[in-house]
């Protein structure tokens, strides 16, 4: 199964990069979102994946008696997911603002005229 994960991560990264290289700002944002997902999955995979053993201690027990999934990547990813929401919210509103100002989704329209002398 790890190989499937590896392929998925590759696909997510490749798709994210491809979208980053577009001229459209919306696609740029989508690219960032995809890259974020790819990175989350990568961290998840590298922490070691375990099936059906959530890092939750059983009802009666005080410590783990069985093997369990690594909690640290999970805590990291949870943080990352929430933060990326904040990032995307801000970015998308920025985009909206820019759109209202320049009335275009094209990144190239954002270039200011060259300042002649510095």
């Amino acid at each position, binding site marked *: 199964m*790890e190989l499937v994960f590896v392929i998925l991560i590759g696909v997510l*990264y490749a*798709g994210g990069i491809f979208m980053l290289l577009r001229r459209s700002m919306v696609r740029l944002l989508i690219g960032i979102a*995809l890259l974020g997902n790819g990175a989350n999955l990568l961290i998840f995979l590298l922490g070691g994946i375990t099936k059906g053993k959530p890092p939750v201690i059983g009802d009666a027990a005080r410590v783990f008696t069985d093997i369990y999934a690594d909690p640290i990547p999970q805590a990291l990813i949870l943080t990352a997911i929430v933060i990326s929401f904040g990032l995307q919210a801000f970015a998308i509103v920025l985009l909206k603002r820019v759109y209202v100002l320049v009335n275009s989704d094209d990144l190239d329209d954002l270039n200011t005229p060259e300042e002649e002398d510095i």
Partner: protein
Amino acid sequence: MLIAVLSGLLFSLLYIPFGKYLKGRLAVVAALLPIGLFAYFCSFIPAVSAGNAQVFQYPWIPSMGVNLDFRLDGLSLLFSLLITGIGSLIFLYASAYLKGHPYLGRFYAYLCLFMAAMLGVVLSDNVLLLFVFWELTSISSFFLIGFNNDDAASRKNSLMALAVTGGGGFLLMGGLVLMGHLSGTYSIREMFASNEFLKAHALYPLILALVFMGAFTKSAQFPFHFWLPGAMKAPTPVSAYLHSATMVKAGIYLLARLYPVLGGTDWWTYPLIVVGGITMLYSAFHSIFRTDLKGILAYSTISALGILVFLIGIGTTQALLAAAVFILVHALYKASLFLTTGVIDHETGTRDVTKLSGLRLVLMPLAVAGLLAGLSSAGLPYTFGFIGKDLIYEATLNTGGAMPVILTSLAVITNILLLYAGLLAGLKPFTGSLPSSFADIHLPHWLMWTPPVLLALLGIAFGAFPALADTALLNPAAAAMINESIDSPLKIWHGFNLVLLLSGTTLVLGAVLYLMRKPSAASVTWMARFDHISPKHIMGRTVQYAAKSAAVYTKTLHNGYLRVYLLCIILFAIGLLAFRLFTGGPVQWTINELGPVTSYELIVAGILIGAMYLTVTTPSRLAAIAAIGVIGYCICLLFVFYSAPDLAMTQFTIDTLTVVLFVLVLFKLPPFLNFANRSVRIRDGVVATCFGAIISLIAIQVLNEPTDKTVSQYYGDNAYLLAKGKNVVNVILVDFRGMDTMFEIVVLSIAAIGVYSLLKLRLRASDKD
């Protein structure tokens, strides 16, 4: 002591919020700080002149050898008294000079900061601490010079001063760290012990070069002198404070302070004599071609600094005593002249010496101050300047070999020119007939004319009764430079000897020059012809070329196309990663321990890849958003399969909200435009695929390595025992790493505030264009 040094910083902070209450007379209150400090330092005079240096130690970063060590010996005391004493007068003077200025609070804040930094420089025993304060003086003087920040020239010149002194400071840091490293201590006092070792070390010339660069830039030595005349754009009280008594003397102080550690060798003597000599002659010569009063004073100040460097270079006991005396002499008469100039400028609105005359009729006390300071600068008997000049000649005469003739004639010529400049600034505006345009000028507020008069009178008092200062202040100061005690009272009368003859010659020739030569605008223009070979212009041109080449470079690389930048970065990353991957050992293509694959996982993976294809290819915005929603849910399912229920729940909810967010914002935007043609898309596709493949390969390599689980183990084992929780992920978030979570929600809040303010901001009409 710590409080004394840092009080300036504290007050400086206080002036920023409370400065607006300082309007008008209240500004006088600000002077209480320097006056108090002056009294405080005066209380140390008996102890220090008895040869007991006061040491104050406060641990700061002991592990790095940086402590707040302050040491008050003769040299430090002399400087501290100058800084706080002249500082007090400047504070009082400025309260009248800048009366009603809207940024008076800010001005006092900078001034306090500067004073504290300066005190720090002269009191620090630790070289690193000294450096910190050194830089603080550069920064605070930058603010002070550029205080009239709506004037372009003022901004430019303050920037130039900062560039020169800051660059020098950078080199100085190198020198100081090298010294500390080689001698194994950062305390100047302890460095005395290793001075023989340092002088014999192979890196000694380098240390000297770096320290000299720091001192020369700060003390405006040729060829770095040009920032000082530019800095005359500052309000006059600032010029008087920074450029007569304090800031520019910091370089002198540094040389004097390090003389016992580094001085006395040929490597020390010759560069200082040469640079000091060139500086004093060059700028004394320059000063007589100026017509702007402040310009004259600026160049004569540089010349005086040159003399000081020259004296420290000579390095005999006499020369060092002469330097100590001259520091005080110069500070007194130059501050007085600057303040007089300030009043003239304030009242008449001009500083052009060709236009000013006869002001004694309206500004009598200032005429007295100007005259006395001018005479002291000229070195007339019974002024302090006379004693200073005598000592200089004595010092130059008593050097060995063929040197005395050259050095003495240099000193004599410089002094003749300086005498002329002093008379020009102190005497010329007040003599002659009063032009009618100046007839209705009247004396300003007493706070503006008493400080220069007081300073000038002090110069006379010390000159007439040298015993006031010699054993108490000046001998200990010189003693600190050679690190042994000196007892040589200053004398006015040495008898008929060569020194007296030289003094007399200087006086006569200077007076003749003053009477013969009239300053005129023509001489200024004549001098301007040589401007293009002056160091200032060479530096200016260098900066211009640097800016031009930077612009060319920027236009090539920074072409404004985000995707080009990204492409560069990604290609570089691919290259770097691939290089490391394929040269760093055998590349593994498969994973040793594979978990089983089930059919439903394959289906989820298939959906994810399909959704990805849709995202990349669809021309419809909504379809793309829906597709990334699907990708998110697929990842959520993977989290469910692989024992991450918390992640699955978070991913699910966030994904839902993200889609809502995208739809809300993008619903009304037009569909994607397809800008890129086929070949560009193929190129980007190849790049993206390469990047994905590299990441996948790296993931495989990592998976084949054993992982360290100690931290996870710790959290797993202690979740219930220490934190009384059973869901380890949640325990990590709210307990073990709670601080991180705290910052995370702060970041989220900032994002929300950003969104809110971005959208609630009203569009102005001008933004719409």
